[in-house]
């Protein structure tokens, strides 16, 4: 028998609420908000409360999917990234850099967000970069 409570940060939005995942014999069975966290003081929204469900949901994507002839097929990261890069390049050549926009994420780090805007401005050549809440 192994029972653990693992302190972690909610993966859902940018608030960064803290909670414990209850792990019984390797399976995540529950979420309990951390009462001593100054961020959320023992409270969560409905998404946070259900983290243990969606992180283990069979519908959760675990690898890249490429759409071909109207349906998805699983692909490796190299193939998926190559495809995205080649398509972005083609769109830029045909329609110009301002035909592309990038949405950053509240769930990633400051540094990763910095890299995204750098990629938009320095690599693609557009100021079309915005926050995920704008989606």
């Amino acid at each position, binding site marked *: *028998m192994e029972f653990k409570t693992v302190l972690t940060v909610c993966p859902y939005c940018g608030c960064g609420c803290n909670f414990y995942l209850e792990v019984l014999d390797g399976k995540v*069975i529950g979420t309990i*908000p951390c009462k*001593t966290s100054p961020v959320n003081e023992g*409270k*969560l*929204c*409905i998404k946070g409360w259900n983290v243990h469900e969606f992180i283990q949901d069979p519908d959760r994507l675990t690898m890249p999917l490429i759409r071909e002839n109207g349906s998805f097929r699983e692909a490796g990261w190299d193939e998926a990234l190559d495809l995205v890069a080649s398509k972005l390049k083609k769109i830029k050549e045909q329609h110009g850099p301002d035909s592309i926009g990038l949405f950053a994420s509240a769930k990633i780090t400051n540094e990763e967000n910095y890299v995204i805007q750098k990629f938009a401005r320095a690599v693609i050549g557009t100021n079309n970069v915005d926050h995920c809440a704008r989606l």
Partner: protein
Amino acid sequence: MIEKVIERVKELLEGGEIKGFVGLCNKNGHTAPYLFTEVAELDHLVVGDFQNPGDARYPLNKLLIDLYRAYPEEKFGVLVRGCDERGLNDLYVWNQLTPKNVVAVGIPCPQELADACGCPKPYPDNSVAEPIAEGAEAQDLIRMEALGVKERFTQWMEVFSKCIKCYGCRDICPMCFCKECSLELDELIPRGEMPPEIPIFHLVRAVHMAGRCIDCGLCNEACPVDIPLRTLYKKVGDIVYRKFNYRPGFDKGKSPLNVLENK
């Protein structure tokens, strides 16, 4: 007091009487619910007084139920305050736990906490120490009842309207153990509709806590918009006590509302 708790748990673990102790542990600078299985870990045991008495209490009985469902043959210890012990008593009534699988290690609450909780019995019977506080009256309820019906209704509707439908009040509750929850019935509470219809959302839960709520206040503390849920459930408990002379966790024997058990 903490030494006494550690001493008792050590005894239970070393004597092999329990498989583990469901308690609270100081980890990463936070207070965490924790299953102690080794005596060496007990140095990190805390009772849930982080900055103030009882400000880091967790629904440990809920964890105990999870463990009991997975390991019904094993015996576990659990840290209890007065309210948690009432919870255990009532969970036995509802067949969610059996006394032979549980050893309660209790601590009394200080007067400050008892007053804030409006707690009728701020100490458990199975305790490592004598009571240090007397039962307190529910001032919140007294204040609310002093208002006229109209004023009361307006106030409740106003606070209910702040609900963000997080279901936190249900999820944290150590006495909410149903496999199917009425708050998820589409006919009653349509899914995806925000805000939830008031007051039905809160009254459904209040009615379901009748004869079951042991007045621990954890729901109130988990509510992100400070709806005084505890006051509401205190009132519901009051009605059950007056009509059926039954107080969950205090009175042994069958709950008058436990229809499943009626012969």
